[in-house]
């Protein structure tokens, strides 16, 4: 069998530096936005005491979820022994690290007191799932870092599988943890569901793979390398399965919620009369993020169209973004029912009314900067390290099924 040759990503300088420069610009703008938010206080955002987590959290959670999913390809390659995926393992590890870092940057900069990062890193309340998440995140960096190392350094090859397994379990734990951030919010009806954690896992698979496909194709286009159709077809089919699964989980989630009488209100809100959230659910999550990509991925008309795969992946991401938005913001917007059987006539604190939230540009810029941070890390990482195979031409013989 021909050995895979990994090579730093080289492409013509103006292209590379130009790309980096524009990413850097986006990041700079985002940092400016974050500074604006921190300097003035969060009153310059659309967030309030009702919607306490706004757009930055949507971005952050989206990226973090995608991060653990991005590792999927590596796991299939070295944990489950999918030879077709093996050469992609390194890049998948790098992307996972990049996405997580991007997400965390956003999360950090959205804190009320980011200057107290050291407090967050040194004082833990082990009862808090959030604290566990901090450990899970740092652990993720370490383990995926090690995993990358074992994949790249022949001397440590023998540890590849055990570390790969560890990374695999860690990342399942991480997504479960992220999902549980919501699962633990028993008070909020939208989140109080055991299915939240597995749903996050499957969401992570889908977004992570979509990110993977997009970055992979772009990287290869950037550097003028080739990817074989067969490989892409595999990735594409996998993506299709994940997208389907996400839809399925969403269905189960809402069905089980409908089963619990208490949750009828919030279900009605999301599915029927939640205004923007309902639209986002049906148009954003289901249509853009589910049905259209499925069509693009499975329709015979587009079997080998790379463009279709790119568009489908992009739509999966957009749909996923809406999905997280509906979960995070929609879940908060729906009022908590403190007084069953009563109707709130007046309250200065918006009891009983749907909270409104209009994100500001600053929040969006911060979130986008997070994505830019991820992409910058990936761009720099793949230039500095040998993560991308020289060529991803389909293997000549059908050895890789």
């Amino acid at each position, binding site marked *: 069998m021909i050995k895979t040759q990994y090579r730093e990503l080289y492409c013509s300088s103006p292209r590379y530096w130009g790309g980096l420069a524009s990413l850097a610009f986006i990041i700079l703008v985002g940092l400016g936005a974050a500074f604006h938010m*921190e300097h*003035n*206080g*969060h*009153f310059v955002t659309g*967030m*309030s*005491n*009702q919607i*306490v*987590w706004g757009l930055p959290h949507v971005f952050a959670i989206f990226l973090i979820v995608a991060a653990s999913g991005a590792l999927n390809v590596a796991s299939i390659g070295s944990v489950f022994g999918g030879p077709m995926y093996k050469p992609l393992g390194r890049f998948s590890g790098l992307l996972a690290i990049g996405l997580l870092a991007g997400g965390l940057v956003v999360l950090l900069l959205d*804190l*009320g*007191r*980011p200057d*107290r*990062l050291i*407090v*967050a890193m040194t*004082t*833990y*309340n082990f*009862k*808090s*799932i*959030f*604290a566990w*998440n*901090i450990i899970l995140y740092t652990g993720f960096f370490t383990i995926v870092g090690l995993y990358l190392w074992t994949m790249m350094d022949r001397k440590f090859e023998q540890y590849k599988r055990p570390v790969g397994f560890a990374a695999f379990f860690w990342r399942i734990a991480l997504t479960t943890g992220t999902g549980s*951030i919501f699962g*633990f*919010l*028993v*008070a*909020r009806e939208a989140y109080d569901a055991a299915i939240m954690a597995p749903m996050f896992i499957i969401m992570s698979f889908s977004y992570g793979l979509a990110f993977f496909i997009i970055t992979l194709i772009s990287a290869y286009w950037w550097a003028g390398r080739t990817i074989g159709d067969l490989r892409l077809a595999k990735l594409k089919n996998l993506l299709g399965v994940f997208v389907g699964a996400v839809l399925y989980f969403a269905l189960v989630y809402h069905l089980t919620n409908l089963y619990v009488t208490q949750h009828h209100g919030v279900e009605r809100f999301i599915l029927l009369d939640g205004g923007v959230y309902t639209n986002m659910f049906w148009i954003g999550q289901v249509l853009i993020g589910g049905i259209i990509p499925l069509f693009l991925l499975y329709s015979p008309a587009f079997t080998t169209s790379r463009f279709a795969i790119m568009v489908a992946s992009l739509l999966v991401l957009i749909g996923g973004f809406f999905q997280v938005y509906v979960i995070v913001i929609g879940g*908060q917007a729906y009022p*908590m029912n*403190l*007084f*069953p*059987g*009563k*109707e*709130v*006539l*007046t*309250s*200065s*604190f*918006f*009891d009983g009314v749907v*909270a409104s939230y209009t994100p500001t540009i600053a929040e969006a810029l911060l979130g986008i900067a997070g994505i830019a941070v991820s992409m910058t890390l990936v761009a720099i990482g793949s230039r500095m390290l040998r993560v991308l195979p020289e060529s991803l031409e389909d293997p000549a013989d059908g050895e890789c099924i």
Partner: protein
Amino acid sequence: MSCSNDQPDMNRREFLGKSVVAATAAVVAPGVMLTVANAASDEGASSAVRWGLLIDTNKCADGCSACVDACNKENGIDLMQRPTGQSDEMWNAQRPQWVRKVKLRDKQTGEISNLPMMCQHCEHPPCVDVCPTGASFKRADGIVMVDRHTCIGCRYCMMACPYKARSFIHQDVAEQLTGTPRGKGCVESCNLCAGRIDAGHSTTACQDACNKDGHQAILFGDLKNPDSAIAKALKAESSHQIRADLELNTGVRYTNI
């Protein structure tokens, strides 16, 4: 939703905590209490007591907001300036409110009731459970508060609190009272007037205000001391915890909802 059954067990504690003595002393002799209160405060918060509030919604008057105003004053919340450029709507949504007035109508009977909502000082506070740094904490005497020296402003506690009892400080705070430091980027909520209580007072600011207006809707006291007014009152009539289904065993109880 009636929960007289899960009220704190008040019979086991027969003795009086030192601080209760001190508290009494403080009430008895406000002018000369300092050294005494000092001794009391030396001990800090004691687990021999559990502070709580009992709110009689029947007595809470429609249109009154004396408790809210008093709280704002007590804690220097009213010193906060509205940031320039902020709309009314956003100011309302973003300004801190440790206590709020809620007016309810029963969907069946149409009965109107009024009540103040503040942190319920849960015995099993979700806000404390979720706080990553342990900034949200419950003192030995049952008061739940935020240590704003370690709060990172993640707002997870706000997500977790079933009562929306907490506020995030969205802006710079130019002026504070010495007793209640507060500033941008942290989360805060009713602390049962901890500073006052530690200094030996036996009432909260909101209670004082309500009493002053003649409503007597708020009663502060030690839930664990069977002889305290609040314990007696709780025994006398059935009270409610809001969202009792969550089994948080709140320290703030309501009668007549």
